[in-house]
């Protein structure tokens, strides 16, 4: 049996940052399923990463390289091509690879950093035949950017998530024709900057309130039927249109990958599909931390890194001394908010706590208000808030110290 202070599961941006931070104070082992570290970053060859942390626009591989170089220089024990099969509440881990066979690792603390997975056709139930030529956006991205394979020539993209928008541009630059991006919602689900620089720049049409209602083709996709949807997202009769294409790309959302977390009955948040965490990024099981997209799907890798460092620091701290939980303040998602992470504050004696959330509806001239019982303890004005853009607010030590109730509520209101 191997022993370590901290074991990090997943070597994407969250796992890399968490491992590096934890390694400042503890022995760390990093387990990664893939051949190389970096998670999804090596295939995200476009720029736009690192705006906040590095103050410049890096590409995905560059962002990953920065942390991979640091890992190489550290004492962190890295095992790639290693799959974790089981974890338990005593922090025993069973993992496997082709060299060590089955291995048992006894850790003092575990950091869950497994990231997220794309939703597939079966999760959105698109009717029709099952021909070749249907890919998720991330798979297409891997094929084009890593393997050098073009998934198709005439492309229809369903869903306007960021990866789908990025791939619309990538397909176009690589010589394919993107017939259009179809989004079931009345608004794009990706960031505005990606609609502009990936679709508008290349004249790719975005059809809102539309979805794919049928796929045609026996061996290979021959085309798809797209249909308008009404306010309740039901297809509208006689608006069907057949679009010949040889490839359908699905960019219909990401789901945190929590098979391991569920093995040990960690309390999950139904809204985020990730574990419930406190301000230290600790789950409901003491000593088991979670960070990055396994907690909730972030817009920006910078925020993944920042929160992963919080997890790493606290996991190492946990190994030294198990902190007493003194209180429990529930962070409640109030008006126009879907969820807030962290969901719980266990210790207010901190320099600051940053809360992440998304609004449910777009609002102009919005005001973000934090309430301690009925008392307003924080306000931030925003010119516009949109569901695709994650909002973060930071509560200062002064605000935290002054809290009196065991419930903290966040509302997004209209100022006018």
């Amino acid at each position, binding site marked *: 049996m191997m022993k370590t202070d901290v074991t990090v599961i997943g070597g994407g941006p969250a796992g890399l940052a968490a491992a590096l931070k934890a390694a400042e104070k503890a022995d760390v082992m990093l387990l990664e399923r893939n051949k190389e570290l970096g998670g999804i970053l*090596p295939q995200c*060859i*476009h*720029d736009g990463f690192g*705006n906040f942390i590095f103050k410049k*626009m*890096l*590409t*995905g*591989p*560059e962002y*990953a*390289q920065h942390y991979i170089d640091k890992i190489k220089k550290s004492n962190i024990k890295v095992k790639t091509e290693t799959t974790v099969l089981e974890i338990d509440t005593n922090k025993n881990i069973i993992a496997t690879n082709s060299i060590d066979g089955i291995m048992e690792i006894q850790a003092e603390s575990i950091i869950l950093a497994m990231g997220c997975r794309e939703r597939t056709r079966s999760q959105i139930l698109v009717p029709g035949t099952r021909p070749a030529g249907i890919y998720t956006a991330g798979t297409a991205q891997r094929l*084009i*950017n*890593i*393997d*050098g394979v073009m998934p198709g020539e005439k492309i229809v993209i369903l869903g306007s998530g960021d990866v789908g928008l990025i791939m619309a541009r990538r397909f*176009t*630059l*690589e010589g394919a024709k993107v017939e259009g991006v179809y989004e079931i919602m009345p608004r794009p689900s990706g*960031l*505005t*900057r990606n*609609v*502009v*620089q990936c679709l508008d*720049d290349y004249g790719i049409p975005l059809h809102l309130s539309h979805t794919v209602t049928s796929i045609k083709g026996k061996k290979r996709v021959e085309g798809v039927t797209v249909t308008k949807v009404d306010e309740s997202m039901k297809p509208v009769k006689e608006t069907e249109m057949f679009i010949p294409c040889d490839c359908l790309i699905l960019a219909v959302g990401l789901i945190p990958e929590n098979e391991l977390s569920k093995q040990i009955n960690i309390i999950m948040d139904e809204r985020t599909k990730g574990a419930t965490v406190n301000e230290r990024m600790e789950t409901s099981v003491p000593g088991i931390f979670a960070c990055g997209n396994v907690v909730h799907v972030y*817009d*920006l890798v910078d925020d993944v890194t920042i929160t992963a460092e919080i997890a790493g620091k606290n996991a190492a701290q946990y190994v030294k001394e198990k902190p007493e939980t003194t209180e429990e303040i529930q962070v409640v998602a109030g008006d126009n908010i879907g969820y807030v992470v962290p969901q719980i504050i266990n210790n207010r004696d901190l320099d600051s706590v940053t809360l992440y959330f998304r609004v449910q509806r777009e609002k102009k001239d919005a005001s973000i208000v934090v309430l301690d019982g009925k008392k307003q303890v924080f306000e931030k004005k925003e*010119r516009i808030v949109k569901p695709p*853009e994650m909002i973060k607010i930071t509560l200062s030590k002064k605000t935290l110290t002054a809290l009196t109730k065991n419930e903290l509520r966040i509302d997004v209101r209209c100022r006018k």
Partner: protein
Amino acid sequence: MNDDVTCISCPLGCRIHVEKKGDRITVVGHMCKKGEEYAIQEVKDPRRVLTTTVKIEGGRQCLLPVRSEKQIPKDLVKKCVIELSKIGIKAPIKCGDLVYKNILETGANIIATRDVESVEKK
């Protein structure tokens, strides 16, 4: 001349209004200096960072991701990608290495955005 542009410098995606009267340009709706600079550049001469891949031989993978060191005119992005599809380089490569000098006379160099070790080194 009036123009509305959406800033791509950060996720906020500010809608910025640019007004040009003779030599005077006024910008409204931005929230930071980057936004102001972006908007003025966007109406005068829109530019983008180019990212694509080039073939690499003898490496642990078959493609090397690359980018332009600085922004290039938007209209030239596609042409540059086509130009870069014609070249091939050899591993090993370090992140930041020069891959193609002054692409299509834009003054921008193309650099590698990751390390690729050669196969033998393993």
